[in-house]
């Protein structure tokens, strides 16, 4: 295990095959962040581990029910058989590669079938579209062929992906771990729970575990009010990833 990051697990999840690891890190529209936080808040997954790094995490602790915890935590759902890695704070650009390496190592340890990243793709006419489109980006030809057969999202043919999910695609590919990013059209710098709902719906169909996203849509306004501070923090961090370019663009 990479010593850059340390894990403290309160129990070791008893995983069935296939196992999926969903990653939610703040970036465009907080699409992934809102999606994984929804799984946590609805009790679909429960906390089982904290990830520490003196070197790569900002000096921030997430206070949960009066207890200070690492802002990077692991969750597991017995019924859903999902492992979730959720970041409660924006990840500095210099930590992105070490974190991606840690995720690859940990996914290897848990023998997960695929790491699923959820991210947003900022588009200028986001406000005008009723339901945002979703795309996939795979880390291997084999996985791309498998995803091509699905009709729940389209292939992101040509372009770029930057931000915290880009090094995860790279590091997992090196370790021969399946990883794909679910990329949903979104706002760049305002929270987009509607895009998160689209992403969760896709994850739900892919993994076979049904996640009811109707509550997420009902609670969208409350989520936007609650998550404002994190969006501001992420907004300051995002330009360092891509020199002013949006996170994913064609």
């Amino acid at each position, binding site marked *: 295990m990479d010593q850059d990051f340390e894990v403290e697990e309160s129990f070791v999840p008893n995983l069935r095959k296939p196992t999926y690891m969903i990653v939610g890190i703040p970036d465009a529209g907080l699409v992934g962040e809102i999606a994984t936080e929804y799984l946590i808040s609805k009790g679909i997954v429960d906390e089982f581990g904290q990830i520490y790094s003196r070197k790569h995490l900002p000096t921030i602790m997430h206070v949960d029910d009066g207890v200070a915890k690492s802002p990077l935590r692991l969750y597991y759902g017995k019924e859903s058989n999902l492992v979730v890695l959720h970041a409660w704070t924006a990840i500095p650009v210099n930590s992105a590669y070490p974190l991606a390496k840690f995720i690859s190592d940990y996914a290897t340890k848990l023998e997960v079938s695929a790491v699923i990243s959820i991210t947003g793709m900022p588009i*200028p006419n*986001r*406000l005008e579209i009723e339901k945002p489109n979703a795309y996939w980006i795979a880390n291997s030809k084999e996985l791309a062929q498998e995803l091509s057969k699905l009709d729940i999202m389209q292939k992101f043919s040509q372009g770029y992906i930057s931000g915290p999910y880009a090094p995860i695609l790279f590091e997992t590919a090196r370790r021969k771990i399946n990883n794909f990013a679910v990329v949903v059209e979104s*706002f*760049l*710098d*305002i*929270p987009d729970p*509607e895009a998160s709902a689209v992403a969760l719906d896709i994850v739900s169909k892919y993994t076979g575990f049904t996640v009811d996203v109707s509550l997420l849509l009902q609670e*969208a*306004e*409350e989520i*936007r*009010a609650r998550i*404002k501070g994190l*969006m*501001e923090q992420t*907004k300051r961090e995002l330009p360092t990833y891509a020199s002013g370019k949006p996170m994913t663009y064609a």
Partner: protein
Amino acid sequence: MPAYKDLEDMVRKAIEAEMKRMEEIIEFVSREVKESMENQSYIEPLYTEIRRENRVVYVLDVPYLRDETIYIKLEKNTLNFSCTDNRGTKYRLSLRIPNDMSQPEVKVSRVKGRVCLIVEGKASK
């Protein structure tokens, strides 16, 4: 004596001028303090900016917005926005409009719970 009176007048005028200057300083400082205290009670909403030809769209995220509190004023190249949500939080935002936009006009709408400010300049002939 005329010479003595002139000197008294000169001193009085100097004192009056100094007092006027002091009053102006006090007024300026009071205004600054008041403005600063007012600004502290406001928070800036999250917003995104989309630039198109002769048009800028600002999408502002104000959850639980009270529509009737929206206030917009366009002054020279600055668009001032303020509003209050139904929890009593006051929002304020000043946006710089591109200098090359001639005779800009602002349209306001609510779309999917967000405030949409469309600033459009007159098309050049």
